[in-house]
């Protein structure tokens, strides 16, 4: 009796352990040499578009394995992308902003060359409120004065929107938005806060005198609870808005479109965020979206060329990317990037700012 139970207890795990060790040994050897699956990392904003393209690619071109897309945020993705060349490092970086000079230097230092920059379309960063909300109208300067840590270098005292601008309703300032690791936050700071900040002539003068201090004053967001960091989960922000009609949310245009029965976009400078106003950049929160492809991997990772071609084929009007909320770039930009995608023209590192 006792020896039987003992046998049952030990035989199975023992055999399994041996099997697992054998498997891990061979997987370790295989993992280093090469890779037959494309890997993409980066922005959570570009993630839904890249996943849609990879999925379609895997269905249409059954000879390739389905690519893997990981949503890490633009900054963290750039770090992985620029870390080196080889099977361990990703092939594609999704970015909700252009590559920075410091990131390009990092790439060059680690031997990553021939990076191809492709603009896939446009995204809009919108501010929205519940349909039951006060129908606010804002300007970048209002938003800056309400959300900056030290507006124009003075301490932040505003509690109500009315404190910022007498024309606005007397409701408390509660804004749900992305955390600093997000590309959406970078773009929000650059497109809305920076613009509102530079509306003040004194700030423009400071920019020339002390650029570092200018950036700090213009993009640092208050941390006293009026701006609530809501993770990378934009659905959560939409839920919070429908629960609290006084709150304002910051997220990508595709979420506004998908939840049009619950939230509405707040006009900025009198311009309502719509497909058209974002596509022609008249809405202040418009930004281009990019993918970066590692040129050195083109002939090593099977399917990379075909995947990028698939992307270029599908970003037009009426394509499935547009149906998922991607805003199509103007025809000339779109065509220029299609040429880049088909010929893999590398980005000149000298032009990166």
């Amino acid at each position: 009796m006792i020896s039987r139970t003992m046998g049952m207890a030990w035989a199975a795990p023992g055999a399994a352990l041996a099997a697992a060790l054998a498997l891990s040994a061979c997987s370790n050897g295989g993992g280093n040499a090469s890779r037959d699956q494309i890997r993409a990392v980066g922005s959570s904003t570009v993630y839904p578009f890249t996943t849609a393209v990879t999925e379609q690619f895997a269905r249409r071109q059954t000879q390739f394995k389905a690519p893997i897309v990981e949503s890490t945020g633009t900054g963290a993705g750039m770090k992985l992308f620029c870390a080196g060349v080889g099977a361990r490092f990703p092939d594609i970086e999704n970015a909700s902003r252009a590559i920075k000079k410091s990131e390009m230097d990092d790439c060059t230092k680690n031997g990553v060359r021939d990076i191809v920059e492709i603009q896939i379309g446009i995204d809009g960063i919108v501010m929205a409120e519940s349909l039951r909300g006060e129908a606010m109208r804002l300007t970048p300067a209002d938003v800056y004065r309400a959300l900056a840590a030290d507006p124009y270098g003075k301490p932040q005292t505003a509690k109500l929107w009315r404190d910022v601008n007498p024309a606005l309703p007397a409701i408390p300032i509660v804004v749900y938005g992305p955390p600093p690791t997000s590309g959406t936050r970078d773009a929000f700071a650059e497109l809305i806060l920076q613009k509102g900040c530079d509306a003040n002539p004194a700030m423009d003068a400071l920019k020339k005198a002390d650029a570092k201090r200018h950036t700090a004053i213009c993009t640092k967001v208050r941390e006293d609870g009026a701006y609530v960091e809501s993770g990378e989960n934009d659905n959560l922000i939409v839920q919070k808005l429908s629960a609290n009609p006084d709150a304002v949310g910051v997220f990508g245009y595709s979420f506004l479109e998908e939840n049009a029965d619950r939230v509405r976009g707040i006009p900025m400078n009198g311009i309502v965020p719509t497909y058209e106003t974002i596509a022609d950049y008249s809405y202040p929160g418009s930004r281009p979206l990019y993918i970066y492809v590692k040129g050195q991997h083109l002939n090593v990772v099977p399917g990379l060329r075909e995947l990028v071609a698939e992307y270029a084929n599908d970003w037009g009007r009426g394509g499935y990317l547009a149906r998922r909320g991607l805003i199509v770039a103007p025809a000339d930009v779109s065509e220029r990037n299609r040429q880049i995608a088909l010929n893999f023209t590398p980005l000149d590192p000298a032009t990166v700012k």
Partner: protein
Amino acid sequence: MSTIAPVMQPTPKPQQARVPTDWTTTSMQGRIRRRYRAERRFRLLGAGAVLLSTAFLIFLLVSMLGQGLRGFTQTELRLPMDFPAARLALDQAALAGPNARAALAAVDLEAATAQAADRAYGAGAYRLLSDGAWLSVRSAIQADPHILTRRIDIWVPTSTAIDLAAKGDADADAEAGYRLLDARKAVRTSFSTAFLTGSDSTDPTLVGIWGALKGSLLTMFVTLVLAFPVGVLSALYLEEYAARNRWTDLIEVSINNLAAVPSIIFGLLGLAVFLNFLDFPRSAPIVGGLTLALMTMPVIVIAGRNAIKSVPPSIRDAALGIGASKVQVVFHHVLPLALPGILTGTIIGMARALGETAPLLMIGMRAFIASPPGGLADPATVLPVQIFLWSDEVSRGFVEKTSAAIIVLLVFLLAMNGIAIYLRNRFERRW
């Protein structure tokens, strides 16, 4: 003490007859009532606590089942495909041959499917179909190439809007469209195995849970085969062999602390050691399993030591007394008797590992992966991470799929616990 107190001599007291307690006085009655009240209060509090926790459980289950069960169903549209009229450049001979996949890939089935929908239900009707409707047509052709010679009705998945309308949760346009189709008997909503057999997708009508479930199974497998033997052997050694000294005390304290370390730390450890130092593949179940094994092992050691401690010493003494060796005592007597307790500890650790997300995010098991993992080194994701990813999706159709995935996770957990309880009862011995 400088002074010694004089010893008091007890003065003998006259013996008194003990007066029986008078239960009828008001003060006594009041005391009795207070005692009963305290008793009742305690019982009520206890019952209230049980009721509250049951209410939470019922709320969780009802809201999950209410939303999630719909996630297992799928609305389909009847699509009349007229293959001869569509003039596809396909013949049965090519499909029977070895290049069947290439032959199928060369044909634009997407366009053919969209045209068929437009012909059957009016211009623009292709929007009623899921983006992956043509995949159903493709698999129908693969299953039976003879359908290429005739007209046939194929059930294909509908778009998310129609699917939500069928389940009564959509805007007015989609509702109207759905009623029109329903009147023509062209739609059906039924239980679909696609959700249980498919993998991640960007379209809620095409997603499946199998990829994440298989990832979880592989990860748990690695965790179990590493953490269980190592944990049990450590517990046995520490209890039965190790000398009691400062070193074993130090080890005991370290293990107890390790069990309380937040899981994200193990994720960082996994990232630094397995990915950056040992060069293991990113997002692979083997790395996830290794990381979770580090987290589970201390729990097994602690539970195992307690179980081994509770085996009566008389059993060891009796075995040693009739000449058994130390190893024989441990493996023939102590371990089988301690096994139920060890299994309980193992299952608590495994259940925690199954629900863990934070350390797996660090090692890249949060990627979009459209095919189930083929082995321990293939990129994979696990059930809780999949739930997390779907909750962040733009499309409204993912809400019910997220709940459905939660149901699958709960069923998996219950099955795991069920096996553990069965094993425990089988080996349990009372004395």
